[in-house]
């Protein structure tokens, strides 16, 4: 048996002993791209031009942009599936070009749209790929496989010995995520991982993924062409245009509230205000607006719901206000249309600054 997990990123040694440890060991490292350019051989225009970005440890950054804008190319330079033409990329301060590509990739989780499970290996063997490359013991590896199957909600007793083709698309995608997480890499690269699944499965996978990320806190680059997915999942979103130019790089709320330019605004599409409301908990509105219920019964809502849920309930029930009541039955206040509008207005710091901003608040 070869030596255990090699420490490849400096701050990883804190967690180095966690090989075979828990799925929740967590923690990420920073990723910095510095003037990265990629020109494919025989092409006049670069696929990625002068791309610079710093991603903080544990951050989930979404690359969103139209097909062909260079999202995949940008992402694949991080694990050197594609070699940059110029510029530098550092993970945890370490220049990736100074590491052996194979060693580097064993410490970066990688999920592609086509999933790419090995069809001739069982799900367990698929997930065990990187631990085996790293020379983990049999016991560590199988314990880890079992744990990961649980994490992605695939019953080990049922799925461990199945072959990929015996799984549905959504199940395969979960297995793909489990495989990428196997050696507990601090960095994950995900290229439209939920793109090929139906809308219902996709929403479910997204929700599970968010819960998982809340536990493990990896540094993740997540590529998508679906802006709603970016809003739903991302800590920050980079809106990209041709040649991977960054049009705006900010939190979903900030981008929705104040798109930097027409390109970003058009990418957000219609319903920006509703999308913003879906990011705001009801508790972010002023719950002292409006009088307590006088006789008539009002609809009730949990404080963990979003303002969008609240608006939905208001529209559906036709009530003039909602009662916000927590799980213990304690009344926190009531919520009106006016309070929702006010919350929206308050949360747009640069309201009126850009041409599209006014539109963003428009109902």
């Amino acid at each position, binding site marked *: 048996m070869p030596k255990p997990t090699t420490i490849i990123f400096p701050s990883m040694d804190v967690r180095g002993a966690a090989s075979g440890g828990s799925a929740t060991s967590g923690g990420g490292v920073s990723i910095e791209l510095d003037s990265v350019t990629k020109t494919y051989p025989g092409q006049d225009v670069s696929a990625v031009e002068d791309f610079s970005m710093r991603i903080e440890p544990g951050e989930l950054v979404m690359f969103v942009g139209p097909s062909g804008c260079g999202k995949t190319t940008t992402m694949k330079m991080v694990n050197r599936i594609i070699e940059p033409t110029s510029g530098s990329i550092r993970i945890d301060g370490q220049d990736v070009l100074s590491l052996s590509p*194979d060693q580097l990739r064993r*410490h970066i989780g*990688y999920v*592609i749209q086509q999933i*790419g499970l090995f069809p001739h290996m069982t799900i367990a063997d698929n997930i065990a790929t990187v631990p085996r490359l790293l020379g983990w013991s049999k016991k560590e590896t199988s314990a880890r496989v079992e744990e990961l199957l649980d994490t992605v909600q695939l019953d080990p007793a049922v799925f461990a010995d*199945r072959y990929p083709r015996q799984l549905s698309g959504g199940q395969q995608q979960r297995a793909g995520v489990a495989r990428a997480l196997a050696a507990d890499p601090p960095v994950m690269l995900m290229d439209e991982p939920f793109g090929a699944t139906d809308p219902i499965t996709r929403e479910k996978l997204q929700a599970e993924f968010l819960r998982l990320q809340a536990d493990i806190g990896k540094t993740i680059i997540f590529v998508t062409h679906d802006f709603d997915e970016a809003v739903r999942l991302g800590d920050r979103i980079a809106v990209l245009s041709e040649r991977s130019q960054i049009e705006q790089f900010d939190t979903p709320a900030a981008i929705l509230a104040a798109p930097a330019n027409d390109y970003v605004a058009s990418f957000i599409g219609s319903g920006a205000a509703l999308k913003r409301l879906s990011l705001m908990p009801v508790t972010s509105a002023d719950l002292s607006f409006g009088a307590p219920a006088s006789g008539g019964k009002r609809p009730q809502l949990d404080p963990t719901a979003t303002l969008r849920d609240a608006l939905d309930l208001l529209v559906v029930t036709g009530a003039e206000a909602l009662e916000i009541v927590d799980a213990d039955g304690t009344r926190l206040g009531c919520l009106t249309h006016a309070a929702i509008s006010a919350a929206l207005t308050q949360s747009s710091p640069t309201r009126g600054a850009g041409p599209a901003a006014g539109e963003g608040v428009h109902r």
Partner: protein
Amino acid sequence: MSTLTSPDVGRRTTGRRGAVARVLAAPLVVAVLGLVTLLWLQSIELDSIEKRTLNTDYLVDRVREHLLLSLSAAALVALLAIPAGVLIHRTNSRVLRGVVLALANIGQATPAVGVVILLAIVWRTGFTTALVALVAYSFLPVLRNTLTGLAEVDPATREAARGMGMTRTQVLRRIELPLASPVILAGLRTSLVFAVGVATIATFINAGGLGDMIVNGLKLQRYPVLIVGAALVAGIAILIDWVAGLVEEYARPRGL
């Protein structure tokens, strides 16, 4: 396998009766063929020339020569053509691959008799020449199947393997070769059966084998000799194809 629910999966377990019939068909045909030939031989008078040929010692010798020639040709082809295919695949050169595939097609169209006899004329007669001719002849089909099998591996599977940090050699051994193995084995099976047939020609260059019986039977107008020789070649070809088919089925990676 009883817990499997996906419709695709049953393919290997359903139709068990059909599978059994398929497995038993070839040996049954050969047994019937052998029995009929034996009964027929019992029913006729053999003259002295025929008796010299149609006895166990002579038959065993011819069969041994024939098998030695065809099996060693197939083994050499496997040893040479598969690694050659892997090397060409690893150059990643489309041009080279195209040239090899074109050559393989031309090679297929060349008559085997021509190759064997030409080689005997320019070199010498005997077993080695027959072996070299057979290897040269079956080399290109196996090479072609190796190239095709490797090229057919889904690029996403390959990329996932590279993306997880497998070296190129690990990708080849753990992913590409197993996934290409059904196509490669199919090529080997074809070339093996083929070698059994073409080895009949070896008699023209004094390399022995069952071709001796066929040619002598014709020359001396001793049809029992000709027929037994032909029946033996056919029987061996069917049985070898049958065994190769079983190996193919057995060696096929599960999950495909």
